[in-house]
């Protein structure tokens, strides 16, 4: 593919910033051209294997090295549920956007949601089944309480007299039982006055505490770079290009019969070295930035 002219670049919004990336198509073509054939380590291999490993390399980079987060904003309804984005792989930060500010939320490691079965004394197991042998489901108490706001949680608001107290959040207002004595053992893991959340990966949703009802939630997450399966959109930063070639080479040699171990080891070392190198490149460390950071060494600690 030819390089874009400046006019072609500036007058087409979709081209803006494209120069920093190399497309999947170019990666595969370049690899086929330069690394496969009669006089190469890799020969007599079908292209689909190279495509597979190229995509896997992009995925690995997306998980470990890229900084291009994706962000999705949705309003929470009464279900207190945020359906995970279609290309969601892992979350980075979940916020509530309120009054022009972003409030980062804390993950509640306690269970917030559960499946529940109808129970009766008439069967051996005590569980009620339908004609197909499936357990009859009902809303769990924990879900009902959470949605109704009747589930107790800890109110965290330093400076407030109820800070650290157990209470109920109903329609955004907090209610507490009578307090006596002092409270100890603050769970610092959840020491945040904002609503909490729990990710249910199998159900594909984020469940929020009742105090988040009606709030605007912004989820920062990472994807796998597969762009919804659109191969024309798949690309990788040029700083990682050499790494992707090395990754494909290693994976191909590693899976091929009869390749000497020292060749596989050499390919693995090159891949790993290039990965570290690429991460350093992408971190944009330069003397100017280091100098600015080091100026803080003279700052007095109070």
């Amino acid at each position, binding site marked *: 593919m030819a390089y874009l002219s400046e006019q072609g670049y500036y007058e087409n919004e979709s081209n803006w910033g494209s120069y920093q990336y190399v497309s999947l198509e170019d990666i595969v073509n370049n690899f086929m051209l330069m690394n496969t054939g009669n*006089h190469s380590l890799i020969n007599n291999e*079908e*292209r*689909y294997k190279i495509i*597979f490993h190229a995509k896997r390399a992009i995925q690995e980079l997306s998980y470990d090295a890229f900084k291009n987060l994706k962000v999705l904003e949705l309003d929470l309804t009464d279900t207190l549920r945020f359906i995970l984005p279609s290309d969601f792989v892992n979350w980075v930060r979940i916020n509530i956007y309120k009054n022009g500010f972003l409030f980062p939320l804390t993950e509640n490691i306690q269970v917030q949601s559960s499946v529940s079965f109808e129970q009766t004394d008439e069967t051996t197991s005590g569980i009620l089944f339908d004609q197909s042998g499936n357990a009859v489901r009902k809303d769990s108490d924990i879900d009902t309480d959470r949605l109704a706001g009747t589930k107790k949680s800890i109110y965290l608001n330093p400076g407030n007299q109820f800070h650290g107290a157990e209470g109920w959040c109903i329609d955004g207002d907090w209610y507490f039982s009578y307090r006596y004595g002092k409270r100890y053992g603050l769970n610092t893991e959840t020491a945040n006055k904002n609503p909490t959340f729990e990710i249910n990966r199998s159900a594909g949703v984020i469940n929020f505490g009742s105090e988040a009802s009606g709030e605007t939630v912004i989820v920062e997450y990472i994807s796998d770079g597969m762009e919804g*399966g659109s*191969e024309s959109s798949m690309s990788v930063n040029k700083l990682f290009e050499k790494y992707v070639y090395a990754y494909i080479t290693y994976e191909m040699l590693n899976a091929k019969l009869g390749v000497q171990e020292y060749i596989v080891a050499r390919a693995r070392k090159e891949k790993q070295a290039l990965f570290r190198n690429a991460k350093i490149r992408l971190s944009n460390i330069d003397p100017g930035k280091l100098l600015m950071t080091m100026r803080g060494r003279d700052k007095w600690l109070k």
Partner: protein
Amino acid sequence: MINSVRQTVLSVLNKNNYGYITPADFNLYAKQAQLEVFDQYMYDYNYQVNKENARQSGTDYANIGRSLAEGIDTFSVTKPLKKTVNSVTANLNNFYLPSVASTGEDYYMINKVLVYSSVASGTNNVLNTKQLIDTSQPSWTAPVSVGDLVVNSTTENFAYVTAVNGPQTLTLTDDIFTNGDPFQNYRVLSGVKVSDRITHDKITTLNASLYTQPSTIFPAHSEANDFLTIFPSTITAYGQVVAQYIRYPKEPRWTYTTLANAEPVFDSTQADFQDFEVPADDEYTLVQKILGYAGMSIREIEVVKFGQGKEQAETLSEK
């Protein structure tokens, strides 16, 4: 070259009064000999590649592999594949493999299959030599550039763009619209991609995998019987699938018209005349192989041995 080969063969045979072979027999032996020489190119090329990988081959004039590749490349053909009969009616993604009936010649090996994207189509409505003119085309819907493929969908002829004269006219390498009715449909194709040949035990899983499912960027194909099936299945138009293949050499035919002293006199102006297609440096090999066949025919084992001995000596000297 064919007359020279025949004269040499006859000379060897007649010298010792072994016998005589007729033009018809010679043509039969010549066909077999040429096929053997042609087939051996592939094995020799592979041998040379292995020598190169073992660092036992030189460059420049010592690059035997390149010389062999050049010889093989003289049989290279690149042509659009025609849609199968069922494929035309049901708009399927099946295309005939090269054959005498579809592309004009049988193939020895398909080297690569290319897939083009359609960038424009319409009807040629003005006749002009080596040009496509569509006055109803206000502008090409996608950029058309030199080197793009143009097919006549009606006659299934094809040519390449040598100049873009404007939004309505393209200059082509060949005349593909002057045959009778000027109102013939055309298709302009660009953006070539290489298709991956997939075996039958893999094609189903390949299509089922999210990672490897064929796309317009990375198409794939499998071959069965006399046709290939290209994926993704949206690739259905004639001209979209082009094959570069190595064809078999044409059947050599030593032709004559008159007899002089009961001997046929060579005449290369005959309509069915066909010279050998293998390079001239294989004339020696052709003579040896034909002598082998001729010796068997006239039951002279010495001729056979002579041919075989020469051939072996040549093979050894080339290693």
